[in-house]
């Protein structure tokens, strides 16, 4: 089990999320290069976790696998496992990233927010759950893509609290909903945007 401690600010260097994905057999030359296992510190939903690279955190483990399998944040889904569907989207320092396309060790020193870290009354969650306006259908059916859409929408609204429909479509076009609830999803995001503004801009 990873050791847990309260978040104590960022450690390590900031670096952009890599979009490359480890090949199953790729050997990361970590063990040879570093005789002392390096500490990897990741903050998830406000809680700090510390791992030893290649000991309790394999260097080829994706961020998605760490979050789901090791830490139990199963809201995010691994569906395509190659960055095409967005179901694994989480926020890294407030920006949407595809956790299946990023190594867990790359999150060293960063703050990760999964859907479990959103407050229960988050306006995006509420808007997705409640969407039923005539003419647009619901914002979810099977629900498998929903956490990814919610997190992508959350990132959009963090950056742009009052997006137009076109901006919503652009921002969410990296996510796939096979049930095809796109019309309902767009309505939900626009409604969440209104809810946030009605609260005086507080998310």
């Amino acid at each position, binding site marked *: 089990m990873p050791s847990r401690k309260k978040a104590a600010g960022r450690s390590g260097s900031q670096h952009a999320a890599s979009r490359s994905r480890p090949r199953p057999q790729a050997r990361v030359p970590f063990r040879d290069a570093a005789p002392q296992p390096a500490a990897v510190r990741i903050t998830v939903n406000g809680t700090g976790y510390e791992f030893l690279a290649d000991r309790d955190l394999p260097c080829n483990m994706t961020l998605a696998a760490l979050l789901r399998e090791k830490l139990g944040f199963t809201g995010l889904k691994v569906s395509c496992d190659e960055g095409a569907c967005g179901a694994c989207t989480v926020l890294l320092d407030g920006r949407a990233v595809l956790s299946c396309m990023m190594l867990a060790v790359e999150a060293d020193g960063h703050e990760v927010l999964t859907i479990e870290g959103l407050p229960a009354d988050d306006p995006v969650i509420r808007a997705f759950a409640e969407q039923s306006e005539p003419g647009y259908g619901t914002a979810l059916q099977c629900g498998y893509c929903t956490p990814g859409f919610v997190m992508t929408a959350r990132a959009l609204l963090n950056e742009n609290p009052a997006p137009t429909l076109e901006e919503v479509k*652009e921002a969410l076009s990296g996510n796939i909903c096979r049930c095809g609830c796109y019309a309902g999803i767009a309505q939900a995001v626009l409604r969440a945007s209104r809810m946030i503004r009605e609260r005086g801009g507080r998310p």
Partner: protein
Amino acid sequence: MKEPFRQRVARRHVGGYRPRIDGMEKASGRARYADDLTRAESFPGLLYAKVLRSPYPHARVRSIDTTAAEALPGVKAVLTYRDPEVARLKATSAGWTDGVDTVSYDRMMWKRYRDRRVLGDKACWVGDEVGAVVAAESEETAEEALRLLKIDWEVLPFVLDPLEAMKPGSPVIHPEIASGNVMPPDDIGGPDVFLDKGDAEKALSEAEVTVEGTSIHHNATQASLDPWCCVVDWKADRLTMWSNSYEADQSRMHIATMLDIPLNRIRVISSYVGGQFGRGDTGDQPFFLFTALLAKKTGRPVKFKHTRRESFHDTRQPAIYHGRAGARKDGTITALSFRCVGNAGAYADHSMFALKFAPVEVAEVALAHVPNVRFEARGVYTNKIPGCMMRGVGNSQLNLILGHIVDLLAEKLGLDPLEVALKNFGHECGGLPDKSLAAVLQAGAEKIGWKEKRHAPGRGPVFPPDGRRGVGFSCHPGWHAEWQEVRRGEVQVRITLNPDGTVTLDAPTVETGTGSNTCNVLGCAEALSFLDLAPEDIHWVQMVDTDTSVKDCVQTDSSVSYLQSEVMALAARELKERILERAARKFDAAPADLDVSGGRVFPRAQPARGIAVRELLLEPDLVPITVTRSRRPPGDKTGVPFFATFAEVEVDTGTGKVRVLHLAMVNDCGTVMYASGAEAQQIGGQCMGLGEALSEEIVYDRATGVPLNFNWIDYTIPTMADMPDIDPVLLEVWRGNGEYGACGIGEGTVTCTPRAVLNAVYNAIGVRIDEIPVKPEKVLRALGKA
């Protein structure tokens, strides 16, 4: 704000616009799917299974040396086709492991085509499960073990094209079933010419006008986001399986028969499933069996899960349809004749459902007034991915030619194609024009602006620089009225009225996204309106567990949304009687002298003496009232409602790109059970239909038989940016039997979209394209530019 639909009969709950009951659970990420429930943390000692998949389109395993794989640290078991517990497993057909009904092995639907082995020595497509399966401490170790298997393959010649496969001398794929790859006729589908009413040839030769055309439907795949997944734990004499199968009871039946275990020693648990779309039609369901055998061999729980690549295991059945029609000058169709070749791919599965069963249903309910009708179809084995039971099975392929014929005929006669459809299509229970079809076509035409926008082919205004616009439509009969669901057998529900007046509803069906769970709760609240319950007072039991649930209603055919509500109406009546019996003791009166209304039970003669039902139930013994009811859908024919898709497109004649500007989806539902859910199905269906029409296609390397795009980068599913404005229109015109007289609509919503788009493309550019998906190169070729 768009306009809500109008109810024919005002109801309190059924037909409402409201959030889904699982909205918050799913939107917050709390909903648990199979992969979430089966993490290693919950299953100490969990092992992971991986199955060998053929790299060749057609090959036989001569031998497998497992020594190196078994010696790999972390490998706990290797099973091959030679192991007796594997070799003794009976051959199956997906007609058994996927169906609307729970049936025994002997009653499986397509007995003639038992062409699947659980782990055979023969591979029939690239990706086929074959030969060996491994259980190891991690997925990576299991994959490594597969690489260490030393396999002596006998590589066989292969064939991908069904017309090639029909020729003499072609490689034969299942010689024991089809000596020339053409699947032999069977009892259910009937002969090759499976429908022959009147004399179509004679009528065609005597017709005032005739038209003919070809339509080729392609191999889109279901692409559920939630890959197949199961964990099997088999300890002592008890087997438990968690899975994302959409049919818990049938899975149990399947396991019981194949592994020879009594039903009561098997427990199947199904939770939320991330999309179905017909993907159950696959012999891959035997993965339940080899996972179980590995669990038995190792004494540990074993998990098997598809990768995204492996999730490409089934498609819509590609079909080449040739159609001919004869008509009088006024547009009355006198003859229809269709010939079809379906590419079944490597295994038969439900091929005859798509090729014969579905067209027979359509002929019965839409072509009843055409005097001469002939249908001929052949299913052909090839070395491609098996294809059949995708959403809209068989109907999508047939609609592509039917809508083509209507458009061709209308053009030749100088008529509006809406008029041709109205003049001819209807079921035997009603006259012409069909009221449902008339309402559907009128609503769609209004939404799309048919009168203003429809013009002579290729003669519309130019939208600079190279844009040409056009409109098209296609219509189809529904196929999920209650009388068409008789083969399901009895549908069961159990309603428990708790001592505090709340309700626990066991209307088991695996929630795959269709919204039938919300329909169930609305139906229950409606049926129990005498208790004055809100939908929130009803708890819908989400998990299907064969140990505790009544039989689950298989989540197919879009009809679960109303089938269980029909049973609930009966159960509610019984529940009311039971309340009255209990109240009779309390009031010292005969039940017939009492009544329940507004949540109160009272003597009819003295309503003021009444008490709240809750008060009655909170008597000292606190026994809930539980009612279990079953009902077989009645078979009295009532016809079906119609539906239609209307499309407006813009074709760029410079690049060949087709942009869909607007879609209108009109469904007559009989009764709308849940308006927001029904509209979500209508809109979602357009998304899948548009994928099939424009972009989705599995591409093969013809030289090697290897599929090239088993991933979601190269297999392109529409995203939000690809979708036009969609108008969902719900109508209540037709009516079936029962309390609601509804009809499933979700499955059919994909059916008309490709043809509506193709007809709109023709209207835009004046050149016909016969094959979907309509990619830019096909448009340019049709325009003579490539």
